[in-house]
């Protein structure tokens, strides 16, 4: 079971640009390494991160083996409404991990 973290401010004013920091525990196996038995270790990486907030996809990322293990991505968005910031990471096996953060937007 992997662990995913989202860090976002708890409150924001409408229109304020906030920073979201997302991190997930994942080996990000590149597929270029050779294992102890001499065979290449199969690739297993997070391919895509999608951030959904206030009814729309506000940020997405396509990732490649050059991303570090336990990929960390920080990005920003405009606080528009109170609600849930949802992040979803999808890996090579098709498994999706999600994490959410609640934000209260009030001016």
């Amino acid at each position: 079971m992997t662990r995913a973290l989202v860090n976002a401010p708890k409150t924001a004013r409408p229109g304020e640009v906030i920073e979201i920091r997302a991190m997930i525990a994942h080996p990000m196996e590149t597929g270029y390494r050779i294992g102890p038995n001499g065979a290449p270790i199969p690739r297993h990486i997070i391919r895509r991160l999608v951030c959904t907030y206030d009814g729309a996809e506000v940020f997405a990322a396509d990732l490649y083996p050059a991303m570090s293990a336990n990929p960390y991505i920080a990005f920003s968005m405009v606080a528009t409404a109170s609600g849930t910031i949802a992040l979803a990471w999808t890996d090579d096996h098709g498994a999706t991990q999600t994490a959410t953060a609640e934000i209260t937007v009030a001016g």
Partner: protein
Amino acid sequence: MPHHAPSRSPRLGRRGLLLGGAGGLLVLSLTVRAAARPTLQEAIRGFTGGAPVNDGRVRLEIPPLVENGNAVGVTVTVDSPMTADDHVRRIALFNEKNPQPDVAVFHLGPRSGRARVSTRIRLATSQTLAAVAELSDGSFWSSTGSVIVTLAACIEDLS
């Protein structure tokens, strides 16, 4: 003179064989080169679809010297108002000497508010990195940075 002919023909045959072998090696080396990773410029061209790439507007922040290539902090900032009419659509990060040129592609929009992304990447050796941004008007802007890596990623053994 008739006995010269049989002695010459095997020599020619051997030379022909050598030439054929050299040709075979050439073909082999060409296929090896074709299978090698695309260059940094080819990777950028693949992202832009051949559109011209301008210098500027993009700032790539990367430490000039890193000890550990397994996690190198990178921040890309693009000078853009991020409005519905004028915003950054995508930011792509490419490397020069890893086994694969792609690092990541970030998709942004007017709701991003600010065109700034930070992440941590792997570097196999000292090399150049390039950040390319696609704006909503279809133009491409880029910036490059060089890093010296003392401990490389991707080559460690599992023991």
